[in-house]
Every structure is written in C-alpha cells, then in structure tokens.
C-alpha cells in the first residue's frame, strides 16, 4: 500500500513522516522518529508498556494506526521532563521510591501515571491501583510503583513556594 503523509506533534515538536497506513503508532514512534522510550511487551494490547499520552488521553500506542494519529498531540516519557531538563516529580519519585527494576514497563507506567494525576490529583492507594490497571509490571509487584505515584501526587499538590 502506498505510504501516507503523517504529521503530528510529539513532545512539543512538529514532526512529519511517510508511513504505510497499517504502521502502528508504536512503530512510528520507535522506528521512524527514534523515540524508543515506549516499549512493546505484548501482542494483545494488555501490557501497557507502549502507553503514550495522546490528545490528553492515556492510549496504548500499539493499538492505534499511525494514520489515526495524523494531527494528534502526543507526549511520551521523553517529553515529561521540563524544558530546562528538570525531571517531572513522577520521574523523581520513581527513582526515590524504587518504582522500577528492569525499567521496561517504566516509560508506559509513568506516562499513564502522569495522566492519572491529571484526572485525579489526590488518588487513594486503591484509586492508584485501579488507575494503573492497564500497565503490567513483571518485576516489582507494584508496591513501590504505587508508593512512587502517591509520593509524586503529594509533591505536585504542595503549594508552589513550599516546593521550591
């Protein structure tokens, strides 16, 4: 099939490329754009390692065609740090609270947690667990992940002066 022109914004940068309609968004990101943070962990849209933030929603990029993402606004793990290089509180919290071991689920997990905290800035532990139900981790057993997200929520909810 002939390739299509796909234009979209990824991590605040306008990008364009040619891709077959059937190319999966995860492959567009990883192969065409060199954005290798999101990973592929399954074939059946279960694991969430490929999670990106698309048009303000947590989306499994393995279950979206690049063609569908034409015109979309996408944030990946690589786009969460500040423009000055400062880490997002989630990234700091995952480091601080050991919310990862092999790191393979981590980009998808943090990207999902980012949107979760937008939906619900002060989630309880149960709400966090339900909120990350679409992201599987084979290493940690989730305790430290939940702790990290809870810590990031607290940090984000602190008044600005106290945070600085």
């Amino acid at each position, binding site marked *: 099939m002939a390739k299509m022109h796909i234009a979209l914004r990824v991590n605040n940068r306008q990008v364009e490329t040619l891709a077959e309609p059937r190319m999966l968004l995860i492959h567009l990101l990883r192969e065409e754009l060199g954005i*290798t943070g999101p990973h592929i962990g399954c074939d059946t849209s279960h694991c969430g390692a490929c999670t990106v933030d698309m048009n303000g929603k947590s989306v499994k990029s393995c279950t979206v065609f690049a063609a569908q993402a034409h015109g979309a606004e996408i944030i990946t793990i690589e786009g969460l740090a500040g423009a000055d290089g400062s880490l997002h509180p989630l990234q700091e919290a995952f480091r601080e609270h050991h919310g990862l071991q092999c790191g393979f689920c981590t980009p998808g997990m943090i990207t999902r947690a980012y949107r979760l905290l937008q939906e619900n800035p002060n989630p309880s532990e149960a709400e966090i667990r339900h909120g990350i139900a679409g992201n599987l981790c084979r290493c940690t057993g989730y305790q430290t992940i939940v702790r990290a997200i809870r810590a990031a929520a607290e940090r984000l909810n602190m008044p600005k002066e106290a945070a600085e």
Partner: protein
Amino acid sequence: MSAEIESAQARTQKLEGLGTRRKRVEDARFTQGKGNYIDDLKLPGMLFGDFVRSPYGHARVKSINKEAALELPGVKAVLTADDLKPLKLHWMPTLAGDVQAVLADEKVLFQGQEVAFVVAEDRYIAADAVDLVEVEYEELPALVDPTKSMAADAPVLRDDLKDKTSGAHGPRKHHNHVFTWEVGDAEGTARAVRDAAVVAKERIVYQRVHPCPLETCGCVASMDKVNGHLTMWGTFQAPHAVRTVASLISGIPEHKIRIISPDIGGGFGNKVGVYPGYICSIVASIVLGVPVKWVEDRMENLQATAFARDYHMTGEIAATREGRITGLRCHVLADHGAFDTCADPTKYPGRVLQHLHRLLRHPGRARDGRRRLHQQGAGRRRIPLLVPGDGGVLFHRADDRRPGAQARSRPGRNPPPQPNPQRAVSLPIGAQRGIRQRRLSDCA
C-alpha cells in the same frame, strides 16, 4: 524543583556506610526513557529477521516453498534447515548435553517450532514474507501428557535419539526418556515408610509456568567480514555461554566474538538459553554481510522459549504419631519438552530434589532422616525447562543446633535463628499440609 544527577565527586563526598539508602544508578536513564534495550538498537544497513513457525505439535515437514516469499520486494533471504546443513548449523548443542534443532530438520516437535527464517528490510515486510512461505506438513500424533509419554506405544518424537540407550545424565529406558536421577537411601526410606505409624501421601501437579519477562527475547548480530569479528547484542542472562555456543557452531574463535548484554527487560531464567533466533541472526549476518536483528513477539515467547516447572509429583511422608518425620519419599515426573535445554548452573539435574535432600541433611538428624528422591524426566514435546532453585518456602525446619537433636516440626512456634541458614526450597507438599513455613535467606 530540579534534581541534579550528582557528580561522582559529590557522591564520594556524601558517601556513608552500611544502612544508607542509595538510589540506583540505572534509574536515571530508565525513568527518562533512555534505556538501551535490544529493540532500541539500530545499526546502519540492519535487516530484520522473523520466523515461519509450525502450527502442529508433531509433524513431518514434507516441503518448504520459499519462492513467493523471496519475490516480495525487500526480502533478502529465507533460510531453512537445508541452508544450514552444509555449515552443520541446523542443530546446536544445549546446556543440558542434548542437541536442539535450529530450524526444523524433517520434523517439527512442538507447536511454534522454528521452520524457516525470513530476513527483510523491515519487520513489516518480514511479517508479510512469513505468510508467503508455503510449508507442507504431514501431521503426526502429538504427545501432550507426560504421564503417557513412556507407554510402550507412545509416539517416537526424537528420531535422532530413539535407539540411544544412554544420554547426558545416564541410561535411557524409553525413546522418550531423558534421564532418571536418584538421591538418598532407597532401602532405608522404604523401611521407614513401611514401619511408620502414619504415612501421608499426596499427588501434586505443579503446573507449567512461563517466566514471561515484559521484554521478549531478541538480538542483533553483526558480522564484520573484513576483520572476522562477530559482535552480538542480545537479551542474554549468560553472555559467556552464548559466546561459547556461537564460537562452537560458527567456528569463529571466542576471542573474535564480542557478546554484549545491554539493558534487559527482565529475564527470570527465560533469557539464559541460546535460541534459534540468535543462531539464525548470526548466520544471516554472515551470509548477507550486514547486521541482522531478531526480536520475537509475545506469543512466540510464550510458545517457543524456556518455560519452568511442569512437575507431576508424588510424595510420601512417614512419621510417628507425635508428628516426628522419619522419612520422605518423592517421585517427580518432569516434562522437559522436545529438546532438553535445561539450564542447571550447578550441572546437577533434578535440582529441586537436590535442595530437598540437602535441606533434610542436618548433623543432628542424620540418624533419623532417610529419604529417597527420584526425578524422572520424560515427554519431549516442548522446548526447555528450567529446574527451580530460586526462592520458595521452607516446609520443614530441623533444630540442628544441639548434637543428637531430632528433627521436629513445630507448627505455630517461631524458631530461633539458625547458624546455617538453608537455601529456601520450593515444596508445595508442605504448603498443602499447613506445616509452618518460613522463608530463610540464602547465606551463600
């Protein structure tokens, strides 16, 4: 709100002693999406490999037609066992003293077994080409139940082994038998069981599980024909073993092979073995002169890579009326799959039983404990098995600190710390009986 990655100097200055909380070095890159996993690797000219796999559990391969696949633009090669034969690469040695088919040689022995390796410019073309390879199979009766694997009329699976009466771990008593391994005092245990006031017998199936790391297996092989150097990146828990096998089968000396294990997305034993994908990538890179990447998908990982457990166990505990154990007899039937690629670091087969035996051998108890452990591997339908040795719960704890002490099981009490913590052992029998369980850390 910035978090600097501290300079080495600053870190040294802040260095404190034992008990200090430290952050991991690698988390800095993992939390920013800057890990280096195999599929992140991209080399100039790199091609992508993908497998044609058998839908049948047991079948003869009558013919393989690659024409249509080779005609697809972007396809560079389609390898089959026939292509590997002149190089003697169609079989490779395993870590368990067996051999494993790299590509199916006249027969397939498990569903998902590799039959042909397609190499193309990208993974999309490779996937289309896989669908275009035509394989003609003659279906044979599949063996899926290890308890039936050693019946007199059980199908012959390994044609290459069917007349061999001995294998890597001892004599073979049936064409589907891998080995039998025994440890302990057979006669003494039989007597203990016969004379016991109480014998508890249980049959337990410990079902097959799969390590399923979130990242599947994969590699990039890059042969430099000018220098004669092979470089390979891969999901390797045992890179040295990969180098040895790669050298053995390719003929390239080890000092000209560089194996790199970059970041890995979990292993749990799944990434110890040497898989056909690694070998085919090496061959393809040698033949085509460019790097070749192979990364499997999840279903391939679950179907065709190393699994664990799959034990059919019978256990008998002989005891006095007061609950003092006087003997333990276990029989374990283990399905080792089509090719025995069991990865036993200590080179002891039947490691689960080795642990059990060691566990029960306390100085104070030697007079009382008798045990006979018998593991019989059989049923070669599927691929590799890993013998457990990792983690688990202790089912019985002997008080071994007083000379002449007799072993007791003490449900409900918290035993004092041991001078020689034992390696924890996985033993569901104890779990079933509700005997007190604790996990002891490995002191080694």
